[in-house]
């Protein structure tokens, strides 16, 4: 966990708090007395870029945890370790790895006063897995064969196949059967009027404007000190920065170039949250150029990842050598590759890819050229794609960069490279299996590079099935070393998510974040545990 705090000017924290309060009083948002007068602030207004489509866990809201309104059976701590939430302890797992038993808390109620029981857990999982439920992430629960209540206060999951990281999926928020059971799951009122067990209760959702949450006084984990959390929906980056500066917002997610403008602002901290959110180029196996292992290895050496982090991400990121971030305990030490343009050229030369008159290479009549797509309108991916193409040109590989909508790119995935992104920090299986297993080659948005490597397949299966952490670690380490030998993707960077916020609370940290960072991620992932500074 790295939280980099960039406070310039060296003022003492106490003085900062006073400054925040003074600044706060002149701001239009503080006409009420929510600033508490002496610097402590028990409400926070957060500017988010994207509004969730739904607040119902049944359609995927909060599936990675931190949903505020709901709790999962388990939850992640700051280090992404699992701890019990609605369950009283971590699950008991049978020796064959196929049954997971969760004993449940008996003292928990939903915000409508109804008790939480095993029936709600069964309802939540069964509804998500129902073919009529339009939940795009239901594939993540594919391993489940059945979920059954064992009395009122325990549930038992039976899996179709041993799936070692299964417990990570049970951070999924639990919906109330009584509140949601008799509605149309896809369009019912539960999507906008959720009833959960979580630390906050939804008080108002004004679509397109904001989502207002108030502390749940009956919360089983104790009532949060920050009593009001408002998620203001501000799609435009510049407007979000302006409203943050005017004091209208207390915190916001910002692109690095706009966050830089707050570096000298007293009382504001810039927080770079590390993420598993990678950008990588798929190298389709069936393309004669990108499928060639020497080309793949040469590209892997020839990209200047450090420069991409500096120039494209303005330092808010890290070089990526595979899907797993270098800071993760799962990262295989020593698989970092240094930028080596000369080495890459020599490698191609030895492999028979000879330089032609036009400055590009060819072998046996096959020119070293391919097309690289990026989704139109995605500036970050565009810049990565252009930097990649210019690095490749230096070693004589001709990459044509094109943009298009996903509908166009989808049809080209088997032939052409695409600047892809993704990342789920919870378990290496989530990161690597869907990217690399040959069984999923070209299956939907899995394994877009059509990567096929029998050794990797075997290791991935081992990591997925083994209940022994040491065995799993060895398997994933071997996968990462195999990726050095045959890199079916060129991993470029892991993108930090950058947040700027008023420095008015204690206990503000970040988790390693996934690719998709909705309102659950960011420094406010555990706002219920913040303490108001007095």
């Amino acid at each position, binding site marked *: 966990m790295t939280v980099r705090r960039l406070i310039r000017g060296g003022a003492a924290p106490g003085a900062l708090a006073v400054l925040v309060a003074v600044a706060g009083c002149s*701001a*239009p*948002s*503080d*006409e*009420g007395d*929510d600033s508490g007068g002496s610097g402590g602030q028990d*409400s926070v*207004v957060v500017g988010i870029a994207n*509004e969730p*489509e*739904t607040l*119902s866990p049944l*359609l995927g809201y909060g599936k990675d945890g931190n949903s505020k309104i709901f709790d999962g059976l388990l939850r992640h701590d700051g280090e992404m370790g699992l701890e019990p939430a609605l369950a009283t302890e971590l699950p008991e797992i049978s020796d064959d790895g196929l049954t997971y038993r969760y004993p449940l808390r008996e003292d928990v109620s939903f915000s409508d006063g109804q008790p939480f029981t095993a029936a709600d857990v069964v309802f939540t999982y069964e509804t998500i897995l129902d*073919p*009529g439920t*339009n939940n*795009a*992430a*239901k*594939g993540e629960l*594919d391993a489940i064969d059945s979920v059954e209540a064992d009395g009122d206060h325990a549930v038992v999951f039976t899996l179709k196949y041993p799936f070692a990281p299964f417990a990570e999926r049970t951070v999924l928020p639990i919906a109330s059967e009584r509140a949601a059971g008799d509605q149309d799951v*896809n*369009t019912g009122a539960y*999507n*906008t009027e959720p009833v959960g067990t979580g630390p906050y209760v939804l*008080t*108002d959702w*004004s*679509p*397109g*404007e*904001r989502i*207002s949450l108030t502390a749940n006084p009956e919360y089983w984990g104790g009532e949060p000190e920050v009593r*009001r959390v*408002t998620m*203001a*929906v*501000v*799609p*435009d980056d510049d*407007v979000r920065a*302006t*409203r943050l500066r*005017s004091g*209208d*917002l207390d915190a916001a997610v910002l692109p690095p170039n706009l966050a830089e403008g707050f570096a000298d602002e007293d009382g504001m901290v810039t927080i770079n949250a590390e993420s598993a959110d990678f950008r990588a180029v798929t190298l389709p196996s069936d393309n004669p150029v990108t499928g060639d292992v020497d080309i793949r290895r040469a590209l892997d050496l020839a990209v200047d990842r450090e420069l991409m982090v500096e120039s494209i991400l303005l330092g808010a990121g890290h070089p990526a050598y595979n899907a797993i971030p270098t800071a993760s305990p799962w990262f295989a030490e020593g698989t970092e590759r240094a930028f080596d343009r000369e080495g890459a050229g020599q490698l191609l030369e030895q492999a028979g890819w000879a330089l032609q008159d036009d400055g590009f290479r060819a072998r046996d009549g096959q020119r070293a050229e391919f097309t690289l797509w990026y989704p139109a309108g995605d500036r970050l991916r565009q810049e990565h794609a252009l930097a990649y193409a210019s690095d490749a040109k230096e070693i004589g590989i001709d990459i044509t960069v094109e943009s298009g*909508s*996903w*509908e166009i790119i*989808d049809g080209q995935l088997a032939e052409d490279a695409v600047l892809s992104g*993704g990342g789920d920090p919870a378990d290496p299986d989530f990161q690597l299996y*869907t990217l690399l297993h040959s069984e*999923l080659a070209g*299956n*939907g*948005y*899995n394994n877009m590079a059509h990567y096929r490597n029998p050794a990797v397949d075997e290791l991935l299966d081992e990591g997925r099935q083994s209940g022994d952490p040491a065995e799993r670690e060895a398997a994933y380490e071997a996968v990462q070393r195999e990726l050095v030998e045959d890199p079916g993707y060129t991993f470029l960077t892991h993108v930090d998510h950058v947040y700027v916020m008023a420095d008015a609370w204690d206990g503000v940290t970040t988790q390693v974040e996934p*690719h*998709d960072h909705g309102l659950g991620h960011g420094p406010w992932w555990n706002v219920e545990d913040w303490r108001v500074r007095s």
Partner: protein
Amino acid sequence: MTVPWPAVARLVGRRLLAAVPVMVLVTLGMFAVAAASPFDPVRRYVGDASGASQETLDALRANLSPDGTFVEQWWSWLTSVLGGDLGQSMALRQPVSQVIAERVGWSLLLCAVAFVGSVLLGTALGVLAARREGGPLDRLFSSLAYTLQAAPPFWLALLAIWLFALQLDVLPAGGLTDAGSDTVTAGSLLSHLALPAAVLTISQLPWFVLYVRQGVSDALHEDPVRGARARGVSERTVLLGHALRSGLLPVLTLVGTRVPELITGALLVETVFSWPGIASATVRAATDTDFPLLAALAAFSALAVLAGNLLADLLYGLADPRVDLNEM
């Protein structure tokens, strides 16, 4: 002035009849475009949830995609709409009627304030400019109008936020109420409405100023005005009683034709100011290719335009006795 109610009623009736084929064409066209669209609603529904399996995608496609040709889809949509069911919004996971009901009021408020503001302000400035054609006021207002007409509302909105919210710190930069409070009070609503309504007013203003200016200055050269002046009628009465009245006629037509422009302008302004109106839903529907929602919104926009034209014609007929409502 007496209102010829029977003629008005006949005009409204004729327009209602004429609206039927227009609405049929608009909605049918909407479904034809949806069928021809290269964009995949399932892809949009899945969004950024990378790693969705083929099985999940196929299941979603089966649940979300309507069956049949676009004409059949249109027919089943039309019959359910006539039965009071606007269908389900894919992007927002809500019934379309709920999406619209929750938001349309705020949009109407914003548009109405801005529209009334731009008509009144535009008329006042246009008359002032026309009073002395080529004078300093005329030059100032005309060149300002041309400049503003060229300025995108989006840019105006950012400028307004920068000036009033950041530099002067007098008006809030967005939202409906103070970000920390949930109750909508009249005072806070007014202060939050000020900037978006002002920006929308200003973006609509140039047309009205220029039309009124042209209309009034043309009227000032007409015989009735010359006659009135010759009779020694005061300049004020000439300007407001004679010239403005006949100069306003083209402006009334403008009222009808500006409605679509107002709607597009409102979309941008609402987005910038996080105004909880229909705009965010429209933008969402368009970018997520949410055709059930788009169809309903397109139908409503078409109705708004038709109503705007009807209103303009009625006003025209009432303002100018030479115009016979029965002939429109």
